[in-house]
């Protein structure tokens, strides 16, 4: 449904993303991992329309959306969350989510009803009438998720929704994400929490220094020498293998 065709983004002398390609098939949970500064968020911003690629193209359900505005992509069914949460701090949780719901429901009553349903879904039910600015980190992450879900996306881009959460909060939210997929929303997620990547994703892409260096099932990708080297430095894979042999 989403085809990213060798897109590049140059910021001055820095090649943030360099000819990265990926394909998302409907109904899957795809992971996008990579070391810090690999260009994952930049790639997300290009897919959601906040940054224009220097080169390459993006297609969604067959249509070329490379030059489309973010709100048009949202209308097509691409929802996103932000790594640095962006709540409408002066509004209540319910009003926050309703902004997303208004995309498909013009009437206030319908949008509010939809917002309440989504809030229940992600576990924000008790917080509905609280100001969004007063939420905890975990609450804000859930709010990001809820707002994006309220737009009724076909493809959901999750940018580190688990970062900053403690292990029990992560355990709570993993079934929510899986549940969203089971309802027919395709998910592409950037994630550093490997426990979540291993349990959730069927397929993982690895981005390092702006290039796609590996892809495949999570277990295979984690064993990939290029991936280990990207995270731990040159020669790390060989050293690990040697150590493994010595201990084994």
């Amino acid at each position, binding site marked *: 449904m989403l085809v990213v065709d060798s897109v590049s983004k140059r910021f001055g002398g820095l090649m943030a993303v360099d000819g990265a390609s990926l394909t998302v098939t409907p109904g899957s949970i795809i992971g996008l991992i990579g070391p810090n500064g690999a260009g994952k968020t930049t790639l997300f911003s290009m897919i959601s329309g906040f940054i224009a690629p220097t080169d390459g193209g993006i297609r969604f359900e067959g249509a070329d959306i490379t030059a489309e*505005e*973010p709100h048009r992509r949202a209308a097509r069914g691409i929802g996103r969350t932000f790594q640095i949460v962006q709540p*409408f*701090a002066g*509004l209540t949780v319910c*009003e926050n989510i309703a902004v997303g719901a*208004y995309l498909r429901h013009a009437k206030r009553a319908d*949008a509010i009803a939809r917002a309440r349903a989504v809030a229940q879904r992600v576990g924000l039910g008790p917080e509905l009438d*609280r100001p969004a*600015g007063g939420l905890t980190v975990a609450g804000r992450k859930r709010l990001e998720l809820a707002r994006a879900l309220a737009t009724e996306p076909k493809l959901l881009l999750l940018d580190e929704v688990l970062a900053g959460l403690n292990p029990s909060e992560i355990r709570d939210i993993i079934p929510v994400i899986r549940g969203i997929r089971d309802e027919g929303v395709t998910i592409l997620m950037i994630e550093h929490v490997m426990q979540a990547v291993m349990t959730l994703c069927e397929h993982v892409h690895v981005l390092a220094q702006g290039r796609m260096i590996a892809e495949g099932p999570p277990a295979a990708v984690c064993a990939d020498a290029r991936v280990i080297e990207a995270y731990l430095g040159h020669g790390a894979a060989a050293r690990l293998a040697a150590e493994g042999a010595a201990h084994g």
Partner: protein
Amino acid sequence: MTVRDLIPVLVLVGLAALLPLVVTASPVLNFLVFMLIVALGAQGWNILGGFGGQFSFGHAAFFGTGAYATAILQLRWGVNAWAGLAAAVAAGGAVGWAIGFLSFRSGLRGSYFALVTLAFAEVFRILANAAPLTGGAAGLLIGLDVRPANLQFADRAVFYWLVLGFVAAVLVLTRWIQRSRFGAQLVAVRENEDAAKALGVDSLRVKLRAIALSGAVTALAGGLYAQYFLYIDANIAYGGWISVELLLAPIIGGVGTVFGPVVGALTLHGLGEVAKQFAGRIPGIDLIVFGTVLVLAVAFARGGILGLLERLRDRGVGMLPPSAKSRTAKEVPNAGR
């Protein structure tokens, strides 16, 4: 929007409508009409600045456009005053849209947008001061011809009711905005434009609608001003004073609220008038009061008078059970904003 949503508007406007039956002195009615005209213009500012978060320092551009449109159409082309007023509203909307298109499309926000609006108002002032069409520096005098068809009334109370009716209509409009999809999207743009875009909000279109509406309402106030005082020149219609008045009233009263601009205009002019009564010989005493009230509002009541009342009420319900508190908690303005 249901009738219940409008009860506060109906009650307050109903009470205000009774005033001329009690007070008949001309200076008082003059004061009330002028205050309501400022309130109406401020309501226009509040749509863009309060709900949309786009602070304009140059709403005189719309006020003056409304005033000149009303006057010029009558004087130069013999158009009926009521039709002139309607045209003024349209002109205000068009000028709003044009200024918005030029500044929002190039991504101007915050203080840059404020400065650009200020520049537009100044350019209009200088042009109106020079052009023959606007009567140049001599200004325009609308001939006295007291007939309701000319939008001139023998009784000041009638004009008061007319302006009050427009203020009421805009209160209803603002209430509608607050409850509509457009309003929700406008507030979302104010709070965080990028997040709003990600949720499918066409932020440019929303802001353009807001500035056009805002310009139209403020132009209506300008048209009524011209029609009440029957004389305008560039320094009145496009003067910096009106830009300041229109943004002070909502900030003092409560930015982004339905009643804020009206409460603010009433407070400012009420206090200014009282100060003039007590210290009539000191020129500009009312301006000193304006400044003092602004400093107090910014320092102690960030949500304006209405925000302050809200907070006092919340403190008052501290003893109530938590369920009652959480109901009011949603109206507390966020401290981090």
